[in-house]
């Protein structure tokens, strides 16, 4: 593929990520932080996000036999990370999880947790595609 096409594709993936609500303006903030010394800033931070998220989801899963306080704490952290990179939809699900947690709704927690994971994996997949295409375009 030609570079221009790749760029175009990357742009369209990116746009669709925004359009579908996977990402919000915070991601643009990250993009704004990219500079010469940090050409892949978004990707780096997103990778950091993956690592953190994997840890936190693991934590959450261990706390899932309904230790609500712990769940709340972990989810708060996770939510912080999400909002840090602008993962809008995951964040939204995190908020729902919080509500269930606050309501001591065990079923709701499990359900929303599944949603969180689902949104997270979807986002991860999409972002990976995006970064891959973007990298190719840059190359």
């Amino acid at each position, binding site marked *: 593929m030609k570079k221009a096409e790749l760029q175009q594709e990357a742009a369209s993936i990116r746009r669709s990520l925004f359009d579908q609500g996977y990402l919000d*303006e*915070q991601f643009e*903030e*990250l993009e*704004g*932080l990219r*500079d010469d010394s*940090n050409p892949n*800033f978004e990707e*780096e*931070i997103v990778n*950091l*996000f993956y*690592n*953190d998220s994997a840890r936190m989801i693991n934590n959450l899963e261990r706390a899932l036999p309904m230790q609500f306080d712990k769940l709340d*704490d972990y989810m*708060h*952290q996770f*939510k*912080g*990370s999400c*909002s*840090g*990179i*602008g993962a809008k939809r995951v964040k939204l699900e995190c908020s729902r999880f919080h509500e269930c947690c606050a309501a001591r709704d065990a079923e709701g927690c499990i359900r929303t947790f599944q949603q969180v994971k689902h949104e997270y994996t979807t986002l991860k997949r999409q972002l990976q595609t995006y970064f891959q295409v973007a990298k190719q375009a840059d190359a």
Partner: protein
Amino acid sequence: MVCEMEHDLMEDMDIEVLPSMWPEDIGTDAGKQFNIEKPGSDQDMLEEVTIVEEPTIVDFKRLMELTNYTDRGSTQLTYFMKYLEYKQANAVRLLREELDNLSKQRQEVELRKLKILEEHRFEDIRYGDDKRPVSILDEVYDIWQDRPRRKNDVVVQNKGIEIDAEYDTVVYWKQRALHLEKLLEASIQREQTLIEKLEESIKNLERQSTPVEELSQILKRADNFLHFILQNAPIVIGHQDKELRYRFIYNHFPRLQEEDIIGRTDVEIFTGSGVRESQDFKREVLEKGLPAKREITFETELFGSKTFLIYVEPVFSKAGETIGINYMGMDVTDQVRKRERMARIREEIAVQKAKETELNKTIHITEETMRAKQMLATMSHEIRSPLSGVVSMAEILSTTKLDKEQRQLLEVMLSSGDLVLQLINDILDLSKVESGAMKLEATKFRPREVVKHVLQTAAASLQKILTLEGHVADDVPIEVIGDVLRIRQILTNLVSNAIKFTHEGKVGINLSVVARPNFGQSEDGQQKISGDKSNVSVSGLSEEKYFSASQNGSSDECRSPVKSERSRNGATEEQPHSTETTVCIRCDVYDTGIGIPEKAIPTLFKRYMQVSADHARKYGGTGLGLAICKQLVELMGGRLTVSSKEHCGSTFTFILPYKVSIACDNSDDPDDKLSDMEKDDAASDDATQGFFQFQPRTLGSLFSSNGSTRASTLRPQKLGLALPHNLNGFSQNSCSLPSNDVTSNGTTSVEDVIRVTTVTDSPEMSESGSSTTHKPGTENETVVSRDKCAQLQNCIACREIGVETKPSKIQQSSETQEKDNRTCQCVTSRSDSTSTVAKPPLEPKILLVEDNNVNVMVARSMMKQLGHSINVVNNGVEAVRAVQRRNYDLILMDVCMPVMNGLEATKLIRSYEETGNWDAATKAGIEPSSSTSDLQNSEPSTKRMPIIAMTANALSESAEECYANGMDSFVSKPVTFQKLKECLAQFVL
């Protein structure tokens, strides 16, 4: 033989069956009321039933009378008689027939006898002629021919008479005679037997039961059936005569003896409610002659409360006159009770349902209201942010070169913007109080200073010729504990309100201690309700700030709890107080204004209410001010009242309880002996001063109309005149600040001032108010500075002015003229930028406390782009340790963190700043690191480190919490480049 015959006859007659034993009218037709089985078919049935006979009490005589008189009784009797007659006739007929038979037989016998005799004579005549043997009974056969079937039954001795003797001999005749004799004898014998039989049969007949017996048996059976049926029926059956005296009563549950009832009336028998009614009812039936039913509730001693369904039927004589009543009553108490209960339940259900609908309605309305309120609050909040942007930008715009017309437009724009901001702040305040989200601080403060500062502020913005005065009674403690911000807000609000509606005379504040809150109120008042808040908020604050800056912080303690303890003017500051008591301080805000019409007082404290539309037009305002005051006072446990006289003035009074720390300092400020209030010197901070007065200045204050009309709405143009010693007017400026921001504001302003004066050495700053002459020069400088500044820095500076408004405003306002303000501002920013560039050591030291890697990385990168490097720690404990090692110019503190959260860490840091030691931290388990002490000592913490909260839930209460814990501001997550820049601009640059 005869016997048999008789029996047969009897049987034949039996074929005529008896008619029904029972009178016809109670016969077996359909619809009959009385069904009874034929006797005999099952006698046993009733035998098993025990029938108690006592209950029936009958006046038999009366019954006889009745049967004689009444139709019904007579028909019954008639039938009875008919039946009897019939039976008798039958019996008679039978007997007669029997008799007939017998007499016939006798005739025959006699006839034969005669014949025989004749024969003998005949034979005597022709004796010897005819020897033919004759059977004497041959002819007799004919008699019986009528009953052929009996023939065979008849035993006839038809053997021929055998005579041994020779015919016609003497012997023969003798023998013959003997023989006949024998026959005769036999015949007589037979006759006798028949007679016996007859007698026997008659006897039999007699022995048969008499009809009376039979009838009485039947009656008895009927009676038994009735008993059987009635024995458990809860009914009373009775008959009463014309005078309603009982003649018969059947009561299954008798309570009274016969003699107690028979011959008496209801009223004579019972007493209690219902008795009279039943009597009357019976009488009514008696008179009308028509049967009727009624339910009557009796409440008698005899059987308690019972309800009976009574059926009363008149009884007529044959002549058609009523001679009494039949009466049947059934106990329906249970049914009635059930019915009533049902009715009650139904009623309750209906009521319940009505209530439910009502409640639902209310809930609905409440929900709607809540939603509307929430909506309003949210909207206000949402509006505030962009609006403050607009206003700030307009302010920046006003610093640029504009022609006169543009400037005027801009000023209108600014003043309108500020008004809207104020209004929104009011709404937010109000909804915060109402939703209970408003939290009160417990701060140590000096009431006298509060009063003074409020008046000072008011005086500064005064545009009328009014005297402002304050009296503080001697017994008012020097320091009390309460939410000074809110109290100041209330006072400022009331005072500005008073000023607004007072055209001449004075406005004042009285403080006195009262024993007990006696919430005096007065209704004769009248006055302005409009809460004009434009001048309200917390203006005193910045003023104090300023004072503290210039006066070595002597009056700092007024501001916030933390502060009050850390004032470092070398004076004997208060020791940690050991005892606390509560004192009630009454505060009156009086004026000599237009007063409030009485009718308006009830609505005075309602939201959006003003005395009249006229007032609203004339005086402006939203009508929120007093509502907020009232809510705040009530929130603090007091009550706001008003007394007013139209055209004479009004007094608003509130009494609030405050805690008093007894151990608080009673030493005056050592460095300030000067309590001359005439001078209005801010420095004159005599803690015990009890009277303040701000006289109107009539100088040509109006000359201050140099273009900045904007200020006129918000602050006095003539502040220099009103407060001649006011070195810089930023107190006024801050009037328009949202109260929320006050805290951070104030702090910053102090630092700003300090920084400006010490670092920049800018001459303009130190001497404000006189800069008119600098005008051209400063403007040039502005341009220069812009050029010089890196674009970024410039931008930040601008933003500082704009969005953050407070610090820049404070600086700006140091002059009465906008341009000059701007000059200052620009000088500041320029000098800052140069200093950053020129003196690397001055690069701000920034600490980020954040546990989330992603956010750390984001923040770090952003800071890098802004040209700052930052230290990062991961939790509150590490943050405290970091602060122990060195001072920071800015701390960005995540609120939610493991180990120790941001709020706690901030508290510890603040405590250190106040006390100079880390005791609190040690108590919290954080051992000071070894390297701490020297650094600490080398750089005594004269400065309050700005701590910015980073919070994920940007709700107002969490902001409140941040402030309450000593944070200066907060940014909501996710942190953006923009927010960070603004923050840096506000607190670092």
